[in-house]
């Protein structure tokens, strides 16, 4: 289960994620981002209520990061320690901007 709460103002977008970002739900995030990602200058993903992430979720994050980085910045906020550890192990904490 993944709930996505979108908040878009001009070139800035806030996505609040709740639940699990896994093989089954990652395509939902991918589709939700697709619509306007090319034009974004700032993309904030709020992980406060995200419990779980698998490699399928990591792949979506990496792809989004590459696209947004062309014109702007992608940020993750409120990452819990278990997910943070996965970012550390995979080197994602060096790539992504995590607050």
């Amino acid at each position, binding site marked *: 289960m993944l709930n996505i709460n979108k908040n878009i103002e001009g070139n800035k977008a806030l996505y609040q994620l709740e639940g699990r970002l*896994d*093989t*089954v739900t990652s395509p939902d995030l991918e589709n939700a981002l697709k619509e306007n990602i090319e034009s974004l200058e700032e993309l904030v993903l709020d992980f406060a209520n995200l*419990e*779980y*992430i*698998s*490699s*399928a979720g*990591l*792949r979506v994050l*990496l*792809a989004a*990061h*590459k696209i947004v*980085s062309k014109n702007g910045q992608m940020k993750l906020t409120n990452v819990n*320690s*278990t997910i943070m*550890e*996965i970012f550390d*192990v*995979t*080197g994602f904490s*060096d*790539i992504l901007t995590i607050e």
Partner: protein
Amino acid sequence: MENINITLKGRIDSSNAPAIEQEIMAKIEDSSGAPVVIDMTDLEYISSAGLRVLLKVKKSNPDLKITNVSSEVYEILDMTGFTEMMNVEKAYKTVSVEGCEVIGIGANGTVYRIDNDTVVKAYNNADALEDIQHEREVARLALVLGLPTAISYDVVKVGDSYASVFELLNARSFTKLIIAEPDRLDWIAGEFVKLLKQIHSTVVPEGKLPSMKEKALDAAEFMRDYMPQDKYEKLVSLVKAVPESDHMVHGDYHTKNVMLQGDEVLLIDMDTLATGNPIFELAYMYNAFQGYSEYDHEQIMRFQGYDFETGTKFWHKVLSLYLGTDSDEKIREVEDKARILGYIRMIRGSIKRGGLDDTKKKEEIDMWMNELFELLDKTDSLLFTIDEIEVEATVENLKEVQAFIDEHLEKVDCPVKASMQISLAAEEIFVNIANYAYAPDKGNATVRIEVTKEPAVIITFVDQGVPYDPLAKEDPDVSLPADARKIGGLGIFLTKKTMDDVVYEYKDGSNILRMKKII
């Protein structure tokens, strides 16, 4: 009240109908109210004048029953709607079973092979038509729900009772297989368990089959007068705590009731079919393989034709496969739960048959009773979980696999972090199997979970897809910047990094990947 028996012979038409009517009516008036049974064994023809006589009898005697109707007369009664208006029983062909091979002897009757393709199940009970009808209905239900079973296509008379007729082409029971091919015991047990799992995963529409729990409660309540109050109360509360289930159980699952016909495995003897928790099935199975022969080890030889040692070996193999574990401790734990229900069934049966008045039977009952008391002292629940599931390897089934794993992790109070890492690793491995093992075809994956004393969780994935060692793949370079990072390879890498041990082997046509996490 005695029946009024009337026999009709030859032809009934307008020439003799009035005389016959008078005769019957006189008989009925003599003993008012008694049910009328008309035997048509030797009746060849009945015209509409004759049918009108039957109508009059039916009017004055609503319980009218017509028996032994030849197929010619039956056709007339059927065409005119009489078979729906009144109770009409066809005449049954008589079959002799003298000198025929006995395939099996059950509680309700004996199964004979009358020729290469045909077996009959002869019921002990002389009034077996209802039982036969019941078994036919449940067999039909089982077949519709996808279970491989034989349905009787005819009913015949054998001696004073009835028998249902089945087509079974050169089928051999698993009992015979065990005796004839003891070195194939593993294979036989595997097929036996596969069918058992299929039965237990079959969901039965509400109200179609009786509930096993109710039967078990009856047996438990019977024990009230034969055991100490505190033990009795514990027993009843254990049975009551087993939730109702809409999944099927066979109710008499042993090696005589499973047949091999060609390479197809068939289930027979369906009259005990019910719904319920699988522990009830395991209880009956325990009795068949162990319980009834615990006191006298020769008993299983008389019933199955193989010895107690073979029965024990087969039973433990079956339990191990069914539960998906090699752990003797776990097998014993589930077996003990089954024994509680098994003993009360055997004790009740023996007491009802007068066992308390027979020295040897009394000794046997006492032995069962002692075992039961010991088990009750150390058992807190009759429920168990199976440590293995087999699903089609598709991404859609990931949820089911994760729910299965979560259920076990919750039971051992696995810490949240370890739990998430296990879930993550399991997802990576399962999704890999789903995407690549059988592509573009489909196949199954088995997931097994064990919790060791360490404490650690061990999860094993087995598939029969193309041989592939995911661990052999080179790890991605995690120090590269985003632009240089490739999209793939992260899943296996994460699995390796978050688990304490991951090993792969290819064995007997299966990819086996085992991962361990210390919790």
